[in-house]
Protein backbone atom coordinates (compact mmCIF):
# COMPACT_ATOMS: atom_id res chain seq x y z
CA UNK A 1 0.00 0.00 0.00
CA UNK A 2 1.33 3.39 -0.97
CA UNK A 3 1.17 6.20 1.54
CA UNK A 4 -1.57 8.69 0.77
CA UNK A 5 -1.37 12.49 1.01
CA UNK A 6 -3.40 15.41 -0.25
CA UNK A 7 -0.91 18.25 -0.28
CA UNK A 8 2.86 17.91 -0.43
CA UNK A 9 5.95 20.05 -0.96
CA UNK A 10 8.47 18.72 -3.49
CA UNK A 11 11.88 20.14 -4.28
CA UNK A 12 15.15 19.17 -5.92
CA UNK A 13 18.75 20.30 -6.35
CA UNK A 14 19.82 21.52 -2.91
CA UNK A 15 23.41 21.96 -4.20
CA UNK A 16 24.61 22.56 -0.60
CA UNK A 17 22.41 25.65 -0.29
CA UNK A 18 21.55 25.05 3.38
CA UNK A 19 20.13 28.55 3.84
CA UNK A 20 17.54 28.07 1.09
CA UNK A 21 16.73 24.62 2.44
CA UNK A 22 16.10 26.02 5.93
CA UNK A 23 13.88 28.74 4.44
CA UNK A 24 11.97 26.12 2.45
CA UNK A 25 11.28 23.93 5.48
CA UNK A 26 9.82 26.89 7.34
CA UNK A 27 7.81 28.10 4.34
CA UNK A 28 6.38 24.65 3.56
CA UNK A 29 5.34 24.14 7.18
CA UNK A 30 3.51 27.47 7.09
CA UNK A 31 1.67 26.30 3.98
CA UNK A 32 0.36 23.22 5.82
CA UNK A 33 1.71 20.39 3.70
CA UNK A 34 1.30 16.74 4.71
CA UNK A 35 4.81 15.73 3.70
CA UNK A 36 8.01 17.06 2.13
CA UNK A 37 9.99 15.27 -0.59
CA UNK A 38 13.48 15.95 -1.93
CA UNK A 39 14.29 14.60 -5.41
CA UNK A 40 18.05 14.54 -5.00
CA UNK A 41 21.31 16.36 -5.75
CA UNK A 42 22.09 17.40 -2.19
CA UNK A 43 25.62 18.59 -2.90
CA UNK A 44 27.48 20.60 -5.60
CA UNK A 45 27.91 24.28 -6.30
CA UNK A 46 27.44 25.65 -2.77
CA UNK A 47 29.47 25.67 0.47
CA UNK A 48 29.91 23.19 3.32
CA UNK A 49 27.85 20.24 2.05
CA UNK A 50 27.54 18.59 5.48
CA UNK A 51 25.21 21.37 6.71
CA UNK A 52 22.39 20.05 4.53
CA UNK A 53 22.00 16.61 6.14
CA UNK A 54 20.87 17.57 9.67
CA UNK A 55 18.28 19.94 8.17
CA UNK A 56 16.81 17.18 6.01
CA UNK A 57 16.61 14.85 8.98
CA UNK A 58 15.19 17.41 11.39
CA UNK A 59 12.65 18.50 8.77
CA UNK A 60 11.39 14.95 8.27
CA UNK A 61 12.14 15.16 4.55
CA UNK A 62 11.80 11.98 2.46
CA UNK A 63 14.77 12.12 0.12
CA UNK A 64 15.89 10.14 -2.92
CA UNK A 65 19.20 10.03 -4.77
CA UNK A 66 20.18 12.26 -7.67
CA UNK A 67 23.13 11.69 -9.98
CA UNK A 68 25.35 13.83 -7.75
CA UNK A 69 24.44 11.81 -4.68
CA UNK A 70 25.09 8.55 -6.52
CA UNK A 71 28.51 9.82 -7.55
CA UNK A 72 29.53 11.18 -4.16
CA UNK A 73 28.16 8.17 -2.27
CA UNK A 74 29.85 5.65 -4.56
CA UNK A 75 33.20 7.43 -4.89
CA UNK A 76 32.77 8.02 -8.65
CA UNK A 77 35.18 10.34 -10.38
CA UNK A 78 32.69 13.03 -11.37
CA UNK A 79 29.12 14.30 -11.19
CA UNK A 80 27.78 12.47 -14.29
CA UNK A 81 26.35 15.65 -15.78
CA UNK A 82 27.92 14.68 -19.08
CA UNK A 83 29.57 17.97 -19.99
CA UNK A 84 31.81 17.96 -23.05
CA UNK A 85 32.62 21.66 -23.22
CA UNK A 86 36.06 22.04 -21.59
CA UNK A 87 34.93 25.23 -19.84
CA UNK A 88 31.95 23.48 -18.24
CA UNK A 89 34.07 20.51 -17.28
CA UNK A 90 36.54 22.75 -15.52
CA UNK A 91 33.88 24.15 -13.17
CA UNK A 92 32.12 20.81 -12.75
CA UNK A 93 35.38 19.18 -11.62
CA UNK A 94 36.25 22.01 -9.23
CA UNK A 95 32.86 21.80 -7.60
CA UNK A 96 32.85 18.01 -7.44
CA UNK A 97 36.28 17.81 -5.82
CA UNK A 98 35.25 20.40 -3.22
CA UNK A 99 31.97 18.66 -2.39
CA UNK A 100 33.45 15.18 -2.31
CA UNK A 101 36.27 16.31 -0.02
CA UNK A 102 33.89 17.93 2.47
CA UNK A 103 31.14 15.33 2.71
CA UNK A 104 31.67 13.16 5.80
CA UNK A 105 31.84 9.40 5.45
CA UNK A 106 28.72 9.13 7.66
CA UNK A 107 26.76 11.33 5.28
CA UNK A 108 28.12 9.46 2.27
CA UNK A 109 26.97 6.20 3.88
CA UNK A 110 23.53 7.73 4.47
CA UNK A 111 23.35 8.80 0.80
CA UNK A 112 23.93 5.19 -0.22
CA UNK A 113 20.66 4.31 1.52
CA UNK A 114 18.60 6.76 -0.55
CA UNK A 115 16.11 5.18 -2.97
CA UNK A 116 16.26 5.78 -6.74
CA UNK A 117 12.57 6.72 -6.85
CA UNK A 118 9.67 7.49 -4.51
CA UNK A 119 6.03 6.62 -5.07
CA UNK A 120 2.96 7.78 -3.17
CA UNK A 121 -0.72 8.59 -3.68
CA UNK A 122 -1.79 12.20 -3.84
CA UNK A 123 -5.56 12.00 -3.56
CA UNK A 124 -6.54 9.74 -6.44
CA UNK A 125 -3.28 10.33 -8.35
CA UNK A 126 -0.37 7.87 -8.42
CA UNK A 127 2.74 10.04 -8.08
CA UNK A 128 6.18 8.90 -9.20
CA UNK A 129 9.11 11.01 -8.04
CA UNK A 130 12.32 10.65 -10.03
CA UNK A 131 15.47 12.72 -10.36
CA UNK A 132 15.96 13.13 -14.14
CA UNK A 133 13.39 10.83 -15.66
CA UNK A 134 11.76 7.57 -14.53
CA UNK A 135 14.15 5.61 -16.75
CA UNK A 136 17.44 7.41 -16.17
CA UNK A 137 18.67 9.36 -13.15
CA UNK A 138 20.58 11.86 -15.25
CA UNK A 139 18.26 12.28 -18.22
CA UNK A 140 17.50 15.93 -18.93
CA UNK A 141 13.81 16.60 -19.44
CA UNK A 142 13.76 20.23 -20.55
CA UNK A 143 10.46 21.86 -21.36
CA UNK A 144 11.57 22.64 -24.93
CA UNK A 145 12.99 19.20 -25.76
CA UNK A 146 10.35 16.95 -24.24
CA UNK A 147 7.38 16.20 -26.50
CA UNK A 148 4.03 15.52 -24.90
CA UNK A 149 3.71 12.10 -26.58
CA UNK A 150 7.10 11.13 -25.09
CA UNK A 151 5.97 11.92 -21.52
CA UNK A 152 2.70 10.08 -22.21
CA UNK A 153 4.78 7.01 -23.02
CA UNK A 154 6.79 7.37 -19.79
CA UNK A 155 3.66 7.82 -17.66
CA UNK A 156 2.05 4.70 -19.11
CA UNK A 157 5.23 2.61 -18.95
CA UNK A 158 5.87 3.58 -15.34
CA UNK A 159 2.28 3.40 -14.05
CA UNK A 160 2.09 7.02 -12.96
CA UNK A 161 -0.54 9.75 -13.14
CA UNK A 162 1.94 12.40 -12.03
CA UNK A 163 5.66 12.27 -12.74
CA UNK A 164 7.73 14.72 -10.69
CA UNK A 165 11.37 15.31 -11.59
CA UNK A 166 14.13 17.91 -11.23
CA UNK A 167 17.77 17.70 -12.52
CA UNK A 168 17.65 20.48 -15.13
CA UNK A 169 17.30 23.33 -12.64
CA UNK A 170 14.30 24.94 -14.37
CA UNK A 171 10.71 24.26 -13.36
CA UNK A 172 7.83 23.49 -15.73
CA UNK A 173 4.51 21.69 -15.84
CA UNK A 174 2.64 19.95 -18.66
CA UNK A 175 -0.84 18.53 -18.49
CA UNK A 176 -1.13 15.31 -20.48
CA UNK A 177 -4.16 13.49 -21.81
CA UNK A 178 -6.42 11.74 -19.23
CA UNK A 179 -5.50 14.18 -16.44
CA UNK A 180 -1.90 12.98 -16.25
CA UNK A 181 0.86 15.45 -15.44
CA UNK A 182 4.56 16.01 -15.65
CA UNK A 183 6.10 18.49 -13.21
CA UNK A 184 9.70 19.59 -13.05
CA UNK A 185 9.69 20.90 -9.49
CA UNK A 186 12.69 23.22 -9.91
CA UNK A 187 15.68 23.48 -7.58
CA UNK A 188 16.34 25.29 -4.32
CA UNK A 189 20.12 25.33 -4.75
CA UNK A 190 20.52 28.13 -7.22
CA UNK A 191 18.29 30.65 -8.94
CA UNK A 192 16.65 29.90 -12.26
CA UNK A 193 18.72 31.87 -14.77
CA UNK A 194 16.15 34.65 -14.92
CA UNK A 195 17.95 37.51 -13.23
CA UNK A 196 16.16 36.99 -9.90
CA UNK A 197 17.85 35.76 -6.74
CA UNK A 198 14.99 33.65 -5.40
CA UNK A 199 14.83 29.88 -5.88
CA UNK A 200 11.78 27.65 -6.49
CA UNK A 201 10.00 24.66 -5.07
CA UNK A 202 6.60 23.11 -5.78
CA UNK A 203 3.43 22.35 -3.88
CA UNK A 204 1.37 19.53 -5.36
CA UNK A 205 -2.24 19.43 -4.26
CA UNK A 206 -5.10 17.05 -5.04
CA UNK A 207 -8.11 18.38 -3.17
CA UNK A 208 -9.70 16.95 -5.22
CA UNK A 209 -8.12 17.81 -8.60
CA UNK A 210 -4.42 17.99 -9.25
CA UNK A 211 -2.81 21.41 -9.12
CA UNK A 212 0.78 22.52 -8.94
CA UNK A 213 1.91 25.78 -7.37
CA UNK A 214 5.44 26.93 -8.06
CA UNK A 215 6.59 28.77 -4.96
CA UNK A 216 9.25 31.48 -5.26
CA UNK A 217 11.46 31.31 -2.20
CA UNK A 218 13.54 34.20 -0.94
CA UNK A 219 16.38 33.44 1.44
CA UNK A 220 19.48 35.18 2.72
CA UNK A 221 21.39 34.75 -0.54
CA UNK A 222 23.97 37.35 0.41
CA UNK A 223 25.03 35.27 3.42
CA UNK A 224 25.35 32.24 1.17
CA UNK A 225 27.44 34.23 -1.31
CA UNK A 226 29.77 35.35 1.49
CA UNK A 227 30.11 31.80 2.79
CA UNK A 228 31.00 30.65 -0.74
CA UNK A 229 33.67 33.34 -0.91
CA UNK A 230 35.14 32.22 2.41
CA UNK A 231 35.25 28.68 1.01
CA UNK A 232 36.99 30.05 -2.10
CA UNK A 233 34.42 28.60 -4.47
CA UNK A 234 34.59 29.92 -8.06
CA UNK A 235 33.69 33.57 -8.41
CA UNK A 236 31.32 32.62 -11.26
CA UNK A 237 29.23 30.49 -8.87
CA UNK A 238 29.01 33.30 -6.33
CA UNK A 239 27.90 35.70 -9.05
CA UNK A 240 25.05 33.36 -9.98
CA UNK A 241 23.79 33.46 -6.38
CA UNK A 242 24.01 37.27 -6.34
CA UNK A 243 22.58 37.97 -9.82
CA UNK A 244 20.27 35.08 -10.67
CA UNK A 245 22.06 34.43 -13.99
CA UNK A 246 23.86 31.18 -14.79
CA UNK A 247 27.34 31.70 -16.18
CA UNK A 248 28.72 28.14 -16.16
CA UNK A 249 27.62 24.67 -17.23
CA UNK A 250 25.45 26.25 -19.91
CA UNK A 251 26.13 23.83 -22.74
CA UNK A 252 23.38 21.43 -21.67
CA UNK A 253 20.68 24.09 -22.13
CA UNK A 254 18.58 23.69 -25.28
CA UNK A 255 18.13 26.70 -27.55
CA UNK A 256 14.93 28.07 -26.02
CA UNK A 257 16.09 27.80 -22.41
CA UNK A 258 19.50 29.23 -23.31
CA UNK A 259 17.97 32.27 -24.99
CA UNK A 260 16.13 33.18 -21.80
CA UNK A 261 19.39 33.60 -19.90
CA UNK A 262 21.98 36.32 -20.17
CA UNK A 263 25.06 34.18 -20.95
Amino acid at each position, binding site marked *: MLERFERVAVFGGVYSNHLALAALLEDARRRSVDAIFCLGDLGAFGPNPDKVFPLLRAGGVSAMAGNYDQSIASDLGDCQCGYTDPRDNHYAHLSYRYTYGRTSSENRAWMRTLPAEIRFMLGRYRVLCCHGSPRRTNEFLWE*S*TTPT*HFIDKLAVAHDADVIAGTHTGIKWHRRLASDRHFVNVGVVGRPENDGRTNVWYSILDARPDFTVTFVPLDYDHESLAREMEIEELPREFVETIRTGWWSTCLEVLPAKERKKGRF
Partner: protein
Amino acid sequence: MKAPLVKLEALDHLWFQVTGTLCNLTCHHCFISCGPTNHAFEQMTLESIRDALEASRRHGVKEYFFTGGEPFLHRQMVEILEETLEYGPATVLTNGTLFDEAGLARLARAEGRSLYSLELRISIDGFTPEQNDPIRGKGTFQRAMRGVRQAVEHGFLPLITVMRSWGEDEDHAVFEGFVDTLRSIGYARPRIKLLPPLRIGREEKRSRGYGNDEVVTEEMMVGYDAGALICGHSRVLTDRGVWVCPILIDAPDGKLGDTLEESFDAFALRHRACHTCWLNGSICSNPSSNAAGLDVAGKRASS
Protein backbone atom coordinates in the same frame (compact mmCIF):
# COMPACT_ATOMS: atom_id res chain seq x y z
CA MET B 1 35.11 -12.93 -33.10
CA LYS B 2 31.40 -12.25 -32.55
CA ALA B 3 30.31 -8.62 -32.74
CA PRO B 4 28.22 -7.47 -29.75
CA LEU B 5 24.52 -6.88 -30.37
CA VAL B 6 22.87 -3.61 -29.38
CA LYS B 7 19.14 -3.56 -28.77
CA LEU B 8 16.99 -0.55 -29.59
CA GLU B 9 16.05 0.43 -26.01
CA ALA B 10 13.69 3.19 -27.10
CA LEU B 11 13.19 5.11 -30.32
CA ASP B 12 14.20 8.42 -28.76
CA HIS B 13 15.82 10.04 -31.79
CA LEU B 14 14.31 9.90 -35.25
CA TRP B 15 16.67 11.00 -38.02
CA PHE B 16 15.75 12.02 -41.55
CA GLN B 17 18.29 11.73 -44.37
CA VAL B 18 16.24 14.51 -45.82
CA THR B 19 18.36 15.41 -48.85
CA GLY B 20 19.93 11.98 -49.24
CA THR B 21 23.61 12.27 -50.13
CA LEU B 22 23.20 15.49 -52.08
CA CYS B 23 25.28 18.42 -50.90
CA ASN B 24 26.46 21.70 -52.37
CA LEU B 25 29.90 21.09 -50.82
CA THR B 26 32.39 18.23 -51.20
CA CYS B 27 34.15 18.19 -47.81
CA HIS B 28 37.28 16.05 -47.57
CA HIS B 29 36.25 14.60 -44.22
CA CYS B 30 32.70 13.61 -45.19
CA PHE B 31 32.13 10.10 -43.84
CA ILE B 32 29.43 9.42 -46.43
CA SER B 33 31.14 11.24 -49.32
CA CYS B 34 28.24 13.58 -50.02
CA GLY B 35 28.41 16.02 -52.93
CA PRO B 36 26.49 17.59 -55.83
CA THR B 37 26.61 14.38 -57.86
CA ASN B 38 26.20 11.68 -55.18
CA HIS B 39 22.77 10.18 -55.81
CA ALA B 40 23.22 7.10 -53.60
CA PHE B 41 20.26 8.51 -51.64
CA GLU B 42 17.76 11.00 -53.01
CA GLN B 43 15.63 13.63 -51.29
CA MET B 44 12.72 12.56 -49.13
CA THR B 45 9.26 13.83 -49.94
CA LEU B 46 7.31 16.06 -47.58
CA GLU B 47 4.52 13.46 -47.60
CA SER B 48 6.82 10.67 -46.40
CA ILE B 49 8.09 12.92 -43.64
CA ARG B 50 4.53 13.79 -42.59
CA ASP B 51 3.69 10.09 -42.36
CA ALA B 52 6.78 9.44 -40.25
CA LEU B 53 6.01 12.33 -37.89
CA GLU B 54 2.53 10.96 -37.32
CA ALA B 55 3.91 7.45 -36.73
CA SER B 56 6.51 8.85 -34.34
CA ARG B 57 3.83 9.75 -31.81
CA ARG B 58 3.01 6.09 -31.36
CA HIS B 59 6.64 5.31 -30.68
CA GLY B 60 7.09 8.16 -28.21
CA VAL B 61 9.95 9.76 -30.16
CA LYS B 62 11.76 12.43 -28.14
CA GLU B 63 13.72 14.41 -30.75
CA TYR B 64 13.83 14.85 -34.54
CA PHE B 65 17.03 15.37 -36.54
CA PHE B 66 17.46 16.37 -40.17
CA THR B 67 20.65 15.71 -42.05
CA GLY B 68 21.97 14.98 -45.53
CA GLY B 69 23.77 16.03 -47.55
CA GLU B 70 22.78 19.62 -47.03
CA PRO B 71 19.19 19.82 -45.75
CA PHE B 72 18.59 23.34 -47.09
CA LEU B 73 18.96 22.02 -50.65
CA HIS B 74 15.45 20.66 -50.04
CA ARG B 75 13.00 23.22 -51.38
CA GLN B 76 10.49 22.45 -48.63
CA MET B 77 12.97 22.36 -45.74
CA VAL B 78 11.41 25.34 -43.97
CA GLU B 79 7.96 23.78 -44.21
CA ILE B 80 9.32 20.44 -42.97
CA LEU B 81 10.82 22.09 -39.89
CA GLU B 82 7.68 24.14 -39.26
CA GLU B 83 5.59 20.98 -39.23
CA THR B 84 8.09 19.04 -37.12
CA LEU B 85 8.00 21.72 -34.43
CA GLU B 86 4.34 20.85 -33.89
CA TYR B 87 5.46 17.39 -32.76
CA GLY B 88 8.64 18.02 -30.83
CA PRO B 89 12.14 19.54 -30.83
CA ALA B 90 13.89 19.67 -34.20
CA THR B 91 17.57 19.86 -35.05
CA VAL B 92 18.94 20.51 -38.50
CA LEU B 93 22.57 19.76 -39.41
CA THR B 94 23.64 22.28 -42.03
CA ASN B 95 26.75 23.82 -43.54
CA GLY B 96 25.11 27.23 -43.14
CA THR B 97 25.85 28.35 -46.70
CA LEU B 98 22.31 28.29 -48.10
CA PHE B 99 20.24 30.30 -45.61
CA ASP B 100 17.91 32.93 -47.00
CA GLU B 101 16.43 35.72 -44.95
CA ALA B 102 12.79 34.86 -45.56
CA GLY B 103 13.37 31.23 -44.62
CA LEU B 104 15.18 32.13 -41.41
CA ALA B 105 12.44 34.58 -40.48
CA ARG B 106 9.82 31.86 -40.95
CA LEU B 107 11.86 29.41 -38.87
CA ALA B 108 12.27 31.95 -36.08
CA ARG B 109 8.50 32.49 -36.04
CA ALA B 110 7.86 28.74 -36.07
CA GLU B 111 10.13 28.23 -33.07
CA GLY B 112 8.48 31.16 -31.31
CA ARG B 113 5.04 29.56 -31.75
CA SER B 114 6.21 26.11 -30.71
CA LEU B 115 6.71 24.68 -27.24
CA TYR B 116 9.91 23.17 -28.61
CA SER B 117 13.43 24.21 -29.51
CA LEU B 118 14.76 24.43 -33.04
CA GLU B 119 18.49 23.79 -33.09
CA LEU B 120 20.56 24.93 -36.06
CA ARG B 121 23.81 22.97 -36.07
CA ILE B 122 26.31 24.62 -38.39
CA SER B 123 29.44 22.69 -39.35
CA ILE B 124 32.68 24.65 -39.47
CA ASP B 125 36.02 22.91 -39.16
CA GLY B 126 38.43 25.63 -38.14
CA PHE B 127 38.29 29.15 -36.78
CA THR B 128 40.27 30.54 -39.72
CA PRO B 129 39.95 29.99 -43.49
CA GLU B 130 43.42 28.44 -43.37
CA GLN B 131 42.15 25.67 -41.05
CA ASN B 132 38.65 25.26 -42.43
CA ASP B 133 38.91 25.63 -46.21
CA PRO B 134 41.38 22.79 -46.90
CA ILE B 135 38.77 20.48 -45.32
CA ARG B 136 35.48 22.00 -46.46
CA GLY B 137 36.48 23.77 -49.69
CA LYS B 138 37.71 27.15 -50.85
CA GLY B 139 35.66 30.08 -49.61
CA THR B 140 33.50 27.96 -47.30
CA PHE B 141 34.76 29.62 -44.12
CA GLN B 142 33.50 33.03 -45.17
CA ARG B 143 30.21 31.59 -46.42
CA ALA B 144 29.58 29.64 -43.22
CA MET B 145 30.44 32.67 -41.09
CA ARG B 146 27.91 34.68 -43.06
CA GLY B 147 25.38 31.93 -42.29
CA VAL B 148 26.18 32.13 -38.58
CA ARG B 149 25.71 35.89 -38.65
CA GLN B 150 22.37 35.56 -40.45
CA ALA B 151 21.15 32.96 -37.95
CA VAL B 152 22.21 35.11 -34.99
CA GLU B 153 20.48 38.16 -36.49
CA HIS B 154 17.27 36.16 -36.60
CA GLY B 155 17.58 35.34 -32.91
CA PHE B 156 19.08 31.83 -33.15
CA LEU B 157 21.98 30.59 -31.07
CA PRO B 158 23.42 28.08 -33.55
CA LEU B 159 25.45 25.15 -32.33
CA ILE B 160 28.76 25.21 -34.15
CA THR B 161 29.93 21.64 -34.75
CA VAL B 162 33.60 21.08 -35.35
CA MET B 163 35.33 17.85 -36.29
CA ARG B 164 38.44 17.37 -34.20
CA SER B 165 41.25 17.45 -36.77
CA TRP B 166 43.85 18.23 -34.09
CA GLY B 167 45.20 16.45 -30.98
CA GLU B 168 42.97 16.40 -27.90
CA ASP B 169 45.56 18.41 -26.00
CA GLU B 170 44.77 21.34 -28.28
CA ASP B 171 41.02 21.29 -27.52
CA HIS B 172 41.14 24.21 -25.17
CA ALA B 173 43.09 26.45 -27.54
CA VAL B 174 40.83 25.60 -30.49
CA PHE B 175 37.78 26.24 -28.34
CA GLU B 176 39.05 29.65 -27.35
CA GLY B 177 39.93 30.39 -30.97
CA PHE B 178 36.38 29.61 -32.03
CA VAL B 179 34.88 31.68 -29.23
CA ASP B 180 36.97 34.73 -30.18
CA THR B 181 36.25 34.40 -33.89
CA LEU B 182 32.53 33.92 -33.41
CA ARG B 183 32.30 36.84 -31.00
CA SER B 184 34.12 39.02 -33.51
CA ILE B 185 31.30 38.48 -36.04
CA GLY B 186 28.59 39.31 -33.51
CA TYR B 187 27.82 35.90 -32.00
CA ALA B 188 28.12 36.97 -28.36
CA ARG B 189 27.58 33.62 -26.62
CA PRO B 190 28.71 30.93 -29.00
CA ARG B 191 27.75 27.29 -28.52
CA ILE B 192 30.30 24.79 -29.77
CA LYS B 193 30.25 21.01 -30.08
CA LEU B 194 33.40 19.05 -30.88
CA LEU B 195 33.10 15.83 -32.84
CA PRO B 196 35.59 13.02 -33.32
CA PRO B 197 36.56 12.11 -36.90
CA LEU B 198 34.78 9.12 -38.44
CA ARG B 199 37.45 7.37 -40.49
CA ILE B 200 35.24 6.17 -43.33
CA GLY B 201 34.08 7.72 -46.63
CA ARG B 202 36.35 10.55 -47.77
CA GLU B 203 37.86 10.97 -44.28
CA GLU B 204 39.62 7.63 -44.74
CA LYS B 205 41.75 9.23 -47.45
CA ARG B 206 42.13 12.63 -45.76
CA SER B 207 43.67 11.31 -42.53
CA ARG B 208 43.67 7.56 -42.11
CA GLY B 209 41.32 4.61 -41.97
CA TYR B 210 40.61 2.57 -38.84
CA GLY B 211 43.28 0.26 -37.46
CA ASN B 212 42.76 -3.45 -36.98
CA ASP B 213 42.47 -2.99 -33.23
CA GLU B 214 39.65 -0.45 -33.53
CA VAL B 215 36.78 -2.88 -33.10
CA VAL B 216 34.16 -3.32 -30.39
CA THR B 217 34.28 -6.69 -28.65
CA GLU B 218 31.80 -8.33 -26.31
CA GLU B 219 34.17 -7.79 -23.38
CA MET B 220 34.13 -4.06 -24.11
CA MET B 221 30.36 -4.03 -23.62
CA VAL B 222 30.43 -5.51 -20.12
CA GLY B 223 29.04 -2.84 -17.78
CA TYR B 224 28.74 -0.43 -20.70
CA ASP B 225 25.49 1.48 -21.17
CA ALA B 226 24.52 0.43 -24.71
CA GLY B 227 21.45 2.68 -24.59
CA ALA B 228 23.86 5.58 -24.93
CA LEU B 229 24.92 4.47 -28.42
CA ILE B 230 23.08 5.94 -31.38
CA CYS B 231 21.91 2.49 -32.48
CA GLY B 232 20.53 1.95 -28.96
CA HIS B 233 18.10 4.89 -29.25
CA SER B 234 17.81 6.00 -32.89
CA ARG B 235 16.86 5.04 -36.42
CA VAL B 236 17.33 6.92 -39.70
CA LEU B 237 14.67 7.30 -42.35
CA THR B 238 15.86 7.66 -45.95
CA ASP B 239 14.16 7.65 -49.35
CA ARG B 240 14.96 3.95 -49.61
CA GLY B 241 14.33 2.44 -46.22
CA VAL B 242 15.40 2.70 -42.61
CA TRP B 243 19.01 2.63 -41.50
CA VAL B 244 20.55 1.98 -38.10
CA CYS B 245 22.42 5.28 -37.69
CA PRO B 246 23.40 8.35 -39.71
CA ILE B 247 27.01 7.21 -39.89
CA LEU B 248 26.55 3.80 -41.54
CA ILE B 249 24.40 4.98 -44.44
CA ASP B 250 26.90 3.54 -46.94
CA ALA B 251 26.97 0.15 -45.25
CA PRO B 252 24.54 -2.29 -46.93
CA ASP B 253 23.94 -4.10 -43.64
CA GLY B 254 23.14 -0.74 -42.03
CA LYS B 255 19.69 -1.00 -43.62
CA LEU B 256 17.29 -2.63 -41.16
CA GLY B 257 14.00 -2.54 -43.03
CA ASP B 258 11.73 -0.75 -45.45
CA THR B 259 9.53 0.68 -42.71
CA LEU B 260 10.16 2.01 -39.22
CA GLU B 261 8.34 -0.92 -37.66
CA GLU B 262 10.63 -3.36 -39.50
CA SER B 263 13.77 -1.65 -38.25
CA PHE B 264 13.67 -2.42 -34.53
CA ASP B 265 15.96 -5.46 -34.56
CA ALA B 266 19.20 -5.43 -32.59
CA PHE B 267 22.31 -4.34 -34.48
CA ALA B 268 25.73 -5.98 -34.39
CA LEU B 269 28.61 -3.55 -33.81
CA ARG B 270 30.78 -5.03 -36.52
CA HIS B 271 31.85 -1.79 -38.17
CA ARG B 272 35.06 0.01 -37.33
CA ALA B 273 33.15 3.29 -37.07
CA CYS B 274 31.25 1.70 -34.16
CA HIS B 275 34.50 1.98 -32.23
CA THR B 276 34.31 5.79 -32.43
CA CYS B 277 30.79 5.76 -30.97
CA TRP B 278 31.83 3.30 -28.28
CA LEU B 279 34.64 5.62 -27.23
CA ASN B 280 32.72 8.86 -27.42
CA GLY B 281 29.11 7.95 -26.73
CA SER B 282 26.24 9.51 -28.56
CA ILE B 283 28.23 11.78 -30.84
CA CYS B 284 25.28 12.75 -33.03
CA SER B 285 23.05 14.02 -30.18
CA ASN B 286 22.83 17.55 -28.85
CA PRO B 287 24.52 18.46 -25.54
CA SER B 288 21.05 19.06 -24.03
CA SER B 289 20.20 15.38 -24.40
CA ASN B 290 23.65 14.05 -23.77
CA ALA B 291 23.12 11.31 -21.20
CA ALA B 292 25.77 9.09 -22.68
CA GLY B 293 26.69 6.12 -20.56
CA LEU B 294 25.97 8.01 -17.41
CA ASP B 295 23.96 5.60 -15.35
CA VAL B 296 26.75 3.09 -15.29
CA ALA B 297 29.27 3.47 -12.53
CA GLY B 298 32.73 4.23 -13.78
CA LYS B 299 31.98 3.34 -17.38
CA ARG B 300 31.41 6.74 -18.84
CA ALA B 301 31.18 6.70 -22.61
CA SER B 302 31.95 10.39 -22.85
CA SER B 303 34.08 12.51 -20.62
